[in-house]
């Protein structure tokens, strides 16, 4: 007769399985959940990184942000981030779709061209940004040279309010549009050709086929791209940091950039924290509402 083990094998196995996930759980507690709580705490203090001490100041920072002199910055960042988001969404969705239609041909030449269009996604943003700084340079940039050839005046792409955001969008769009194309293209391939054959028999025009078949069949993909791009573009930082530094005159001062500059440039941890929480809440709201929309309108068949 075998002796009964101290711990049941089943329990032992469960413990071992649990051990597999423990490192990840501990990590997430320390580096994700705890910081969020800590952030809330800091938002009730007057902590400036340079000072040795801090004290609780109640709702001061919250009032500053939502009903004080900080509101102006909050609204500006909201506006700027919204403009950027709309821009990147248009480029990824509309641009991506257009490119998917153009590159929808399968031979060697096209597969090489597709790879080229996609490669910017893998080019580090900082490299891409310095290249765009150079291309868009007011004095010696190639874009302004091309403009001069057709008689247009030189544009201060990065330095003036009207065009700074366009420059940022050109940069991020350059990296994103090939990605949008790839996603759409791989979804298009999976649309059964039966639909198109049937439509052709009915004598449907190309435009009709696109709007009646392709577009509706791609709706889950569109939604997917919409949600992911929406959320990622709200968190834009790097392109703004290198290209414009939030300028000129706050016209590209997106949310994350503002939080960053409060924390790491002005060392105002108090204001940075309350701003970060506001941003987090905004993200939650956006995500919750996109889920609601997606649950209603789109069915993933997995």
């Amino acid at each position: 007769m075998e002796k009964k083990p101290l711990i049941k094998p089943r329990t032992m196995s469960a413990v071992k399985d649990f051990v597999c996930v423990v490192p990840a759980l501990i990590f997430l507690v320390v580096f994700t959940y705890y910081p969020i709580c800590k952030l809330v705490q800091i938002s009730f203090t007057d902590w400036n990184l340079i000072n040795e001490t801090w004290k609780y100041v109640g709702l001061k920072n919250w009032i500053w942000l939502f009903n004080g002199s900080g509101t102006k910055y909050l609204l500006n960042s909201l506006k700027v981030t919204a403009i950027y988001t709309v821009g990147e969404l248009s480029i990824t969705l509309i641009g991506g779709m257009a490119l998917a239609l153009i590159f929808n041909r399968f031979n060697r030449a096209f597969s090489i061209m597709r790879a080229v269009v996609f490669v910017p996604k893998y080019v580090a943003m900082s490299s891409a940004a310095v290249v765009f700084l150079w291309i868009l340079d007011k004095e010696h940039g190639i874009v302004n040279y091309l403009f001069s050839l057709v008689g247009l005046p030189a544009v201060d792409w990065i330095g003036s309010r009207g065009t700074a955001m366009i420059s940022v969008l050109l940069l991020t769009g350059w990296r994103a549009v090939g990605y949008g194309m790839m996603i759409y293209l791989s979804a298009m391939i999976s649309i059964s050709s039966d639909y198109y054959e049937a439509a052709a028999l009915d004598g449907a025009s190309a435009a009709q086929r696109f709007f009646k078949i392709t577009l509706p069949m791609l709706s889950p993909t569109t939604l997917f791209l919409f949600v992911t791009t929406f959320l990622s573009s709200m968190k834009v930082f790097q392109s703004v940091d290198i290209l414009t530094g939030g300028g000129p005159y706050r016209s590209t001062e997106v949310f994350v950039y503002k939080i960053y500059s409060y924390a790491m440039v002005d060392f105002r941890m108090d204001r940075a924290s309350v701003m970060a929480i506001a941003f987090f809440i905004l993200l939650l709201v956006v995500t919750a509402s996109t889920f609601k929309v997606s649950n209603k309108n789109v069915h993933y068949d997995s």
Partner: protein
Amino acid sequence: MAKAKTAREARLERDRNARRKKKIVMIVQYVLAVTVTVIILFPLYWMISSSFKSQEEILLPIPTLWPKEFHPENYISVFRRGNFAKYYYNTIVMTVGILVSQIVTGIFGAYGFSKGAFKGQNACFIFVLGALMIPSQVTFIPIYIMCANWGLSDTFLGLILPSLVSPYYIFMLRQTFKAIDDSYVDAAKVDGLGRVGIITKILAPMCRSTLFTVTLVTFTNGWNSYFWPKIIAKNEKRRVLTIGLAMLKNTFAGQGTMNNHEIMAGAVVAILPVVILFFIFQKYMLTGYSKAAMK
């Protein structure tokens, strides 16, 4: 007779028309595709061509498409004066560190959540998914303060620590492991394989392609990361390529003037490894994102 002939002619005519139309569509498609490709390729082309020009040449009122004479010394200058060798080393160590730890914690985590069985498994998994929703752009302030207090500013550990575990990696692998039939795992257990054995001998080989794709994405993200290195590594000692490149403007500023030829050389050097990887593993990297999208 005549009537039949006309019908045939009409059909031929229709075929011809259709063929012609198809041909026009094809030509238009080619023209558009080539145009788009050229436009998208242009910044990369311009980066490489500028990187070989002299300063006089980049400042010419009429830009030259191709360098009049080659100046590879721009690249030497990036390494000698711009300290890019150090940045390279730092970036490699950081990326490898992140990669290894994310793979290990990711595979074990994914195993636990897919093939393991323990009380509270679902709750724990929700905990992981929830983390996916909290971006580092929000939490960086307390994380920075923690790391700084632990003396991790300007250290490799500081660069790597906040990226030790990737909920994304765990999630992706868990989905893939889940798709594998439990019978494989059970059979392996009967054969006396432990967890490490099951993972390395059964699960990992079966999910090779996903594993590979996700790892490539992780590598690229690590190599190209910017936000956190900018915060934690302010010192030249542990500066990474992305930051070094963005700062090159200041480092060379003393030379006074436009030095985009050297900055472009830096940009080329910085993206080289990832672009090479891209062309070697094109198949995986092209499908990498779309695969996940289709899940």
